[in-house]
């Protein structure tokens, strides 16, 4: 992957820059499709492709570990879960007549009113130029070791507590999901 040493301030340049533009454009396009599609399965598939495209952007940024986690967990785990549930609750013949909720016009106006100034501000804001260290994501104790190992070093040393808390959280989520999804014993099915 090409870096951006040559031009100060740029995070990517040259071919990688175009790749970013393509991926980002497609990601936004599929995101819009997620919101607009009528059939929830279509939405789920578009969301899946959005995740994959964003993962590609991560790869461009040399954050391979996060990209891989994104694909594995998001695309491979969460989306599959979504698809299961969609198919579970899918009612045959009941196609949504109206996909959009009754406040769609207000929400759209609200979003446009806020979106455009914010975009303008974000686009024109000048950030100070920082030196780009391309090897920062792969370096462990002075040797090049790959992104995963670098992340591991940081995760297990500096952020060990949040890591443990996250595992507890996952445990709680698992238990909660089981409890919520259980059919109550007294209820006649």
């Amino acid at each position, binding site marked *: 992957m090409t870096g951006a040493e040559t031009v100060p301030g740029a995070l990517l340049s040259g071919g990688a820059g175009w790749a970013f533009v393509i991926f980002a454009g497609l990601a936004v396009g599929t995101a819009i499709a997620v919101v607009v599609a009528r059939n929830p399965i279509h939405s789920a598939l578009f969301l899946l492709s959005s995740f994959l495209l964003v993962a590609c952007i991560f790869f461009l940024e040399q954050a391979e570990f996060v990209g891989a986690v994104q694909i594995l967990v998001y695309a491979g785990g969460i989306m599959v879960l979504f698809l299961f549930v969609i198919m579970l*609750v899918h009612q045959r013949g009941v196609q949504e007549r109206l996909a959009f909720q009754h406040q769609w016009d207000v*929400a759209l106006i609200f979003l446009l009113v806020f979106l455009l100034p914010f975009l303008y501000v974000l686009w024109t804001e000048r950030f100070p130029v920082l030196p780009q260290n391309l090897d920062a994501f792969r370096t462990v104790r002075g040797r090049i070791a790959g992104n995963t190992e670098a992340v591991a070093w940081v995760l297990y040393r500096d952020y060990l507590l949040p890591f443990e808390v*996250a595992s507890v959280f996952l445990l709680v989520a698992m238990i909660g999901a089981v409890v919520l999804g259980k059919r109550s014993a007294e209820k006649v099915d």
Partner: protein
Amino acid sequence: MNITINHYLVVSFLLFSIGFLGVLVRRNFLTVLMSVELMLNAVNLNLIAFSRRLSDLTGQVFSVFVITIAAGEAAIGLALTISLFRQRRTLNVEEASSMRG
């Protein structure tokens, strides 16, 4: 084609607001959850971009946590969906207005 941090900000904000719009306007509860995932994804993109700019791995670690939490939240949300569906036989969020008034 030089990509600066501004490009990332704009893309991530666009994704975020599309997700937000989805949360506000869709009737199907599952689609609302999917829009929430979109929003979290946008946040991730933002984090990675800044992590790159500052050459600091903290952003990526944070991203991993966000993905973790998103997974947990999606699980709970979907379990709730199933529970809601069993009770009301509908996925229409507009009908979940018993807190009205």
